[in-house]
């Protein structure tokens, strides 16, 4: 998987931000609108396509997703759904952020949807203090400013400390 041996019409080579090369079957790569557009616009598949925003660990995950969805396009949706939820199951927040970023850059809508939804689900119905911890966000409000925002939207904070 690590390096390209040879290129033919069926395969192309992707290079991660940290220099690792991935040989990918063309029908798998077509899951990405970005790659599809590059291939349509006659960008030679013999070239190595650099993906400067995506590291090897993330790219391996993305390609795993693409392969499953490319191969299973004719099979049952239920099977894909269970693959999707299993795929994201134990992923930490950092990995999910990288995945969202990669899916957005490579324009893989299905992956962007499930990863963004997974992140949203982790903070659903959580008070804002917990959201800060989960997302590693520093509170830059003064206590007075925070109280003012809270007061303006009082109904939403019922039941929260």
């Amino acid at each position: 998987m690590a390096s390209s041996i040879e290129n033919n019409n069926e395969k192309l080579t992707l290079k991660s931000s940290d220099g690792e090369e991935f040989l990918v079957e063309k029908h798998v790569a077509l899951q990405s609108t970005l790659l599809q557009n590059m291939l349509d616009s006659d960008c030679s598949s013999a070239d190595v396509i650099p993906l400067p925003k995506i590291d090897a660990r993330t790219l391996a995950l993305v390609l795993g997703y693409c392969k499953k969805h490319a191969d299973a396009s004719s099979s049952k949706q239920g099977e894909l759904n269970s693959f999707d939820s299993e795929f994201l199951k134990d992923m930490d927040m950092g990995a999910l952020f990288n995945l969202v970023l990669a899916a957005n850059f490579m324009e893989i809508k299905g992956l962007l949807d499930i990863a963004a939804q997974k992140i949203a689900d982790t903070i659903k119905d959580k008070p804002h203090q917990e959201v800060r911890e989960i997302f590693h966000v520093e509170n830059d409000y003064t206590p007075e400013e925070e109280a003012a925002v809270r007061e303006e939207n009082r109904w939403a904070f019922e039941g929260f400390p």
Partner: protein
Amino acid sequence: MVIGRCKRGREHNSTFEGKEDNKEDEQQLQDHTAASESVLGCGILELPMNLICEILSRLPPKTIICCKCVCKTFLKILTDPYFSEINLIKAPNVCASLILQHSPSSCAFHFVYMQDLEETSAAATCTADDRPFYRRRISRPCQALTVKSTRFELSHRQVTLVGSCNGLLCLYHASWPPFHYICNPVLGEVMVLPNQISAKRAYNYRSHSGFGFCPKTKQYKVISLTCMQYTDPETRLVSGKTKAEIYTLGTESWRKIGDAPLPKSEGSFDSFLNGILHWITDGFTAFNLISSFDFEMEQFGSVPGPTHFDQEWVNKISWINVGVLGEFLSLCYVIGDGQFDVWVMKDYGVKESWTREFVIDINFYCAREHYLHQPIAFLRNGDLLFIWNSRSLVSYNHRKGTFREFKAFGPWGVRAIAHIPSFISLKGFARGGLLRTSRWRGLMGGVNFYTHM
């Protein structure tokens, strides 16, 4: 593609773009220093703004509002019009929600949202093998479903729900002179519309209003139909005309747009489809069944009924209503001695495309037809949601033939409309007339927004 569009074109996104550029620099730096590490840490603010929007827009309204308190960047994102537009696309998938009014004379409204609707759709409360639905105790709502509600009160009684569009709610106050207001209950924003032109006291009149949105021009409009009726004392014949006026949010005054076909009272529910509002024509016949109003062209029209609707058939209909099922115009009616039919128009405007979706045997399930008289909306899973017996929120699953009761209300006379919560602000439309809840409270003597279960 949505994401591609997010990154280009909009002026107020310039800050977003700038942030992304910084991000690229940072990433390149990281590429050099820690090549084998992940590109990002686990701080969400390292993501470009359009992706933070993508994530936060998938949350229920309550969590979104709480997120305003997380940090100043979140507040900026969540109050940006770009966020409200993205959220509007996602919101229908987050939860089914309604605005409920306990009785026509009440000034209290409940904003109800049902988050786990899909998961609990298997939890049937009544099947064909069970006792008929009407004999069940109705004081015990279905516990499997989380019904969360937020209550808000207006200072006036006699307020009618007109319609809901993109999270904005239109209400009609039948005082003298009558007036409309638009509010976004989630943001707590309320604006009062100017008085209508033809608001004159008539001897005997009825009034109907509709609220809609023109996707092309992005304008919100309110239409008001005022029916002036006169009864000839000798012949006792009623004659009358219906005058239409329209108001575009953000403009100064109402405009007259001529005569309109009069709607049958309570002849429609959630019937706004592709920029066109629909209603059953008053005194409908086989040839003049469904009237429509195109909010963009500002023209009245009519939609043909199903092919089997000849005059003989129409005479047998005891109750009829028009609504929207999925992306289709839909007719619900009661025929004969207790058959509730639901039809959809698969190809808009084509008479032959009307197809029967399902039938409810009212005699078995409900005993009396008027118990079913208030459909509210079709849910995403195709279930029909309605107010049963004027006091209880119930859904019907036609595939299984089952009813589920979500919540019982008391006393009688509950009204409801489908409402998708949004973060569309009225600020852009108010001509100095926008009232925040706090100011509203001071001015009018009481709007309270608070939650309860």
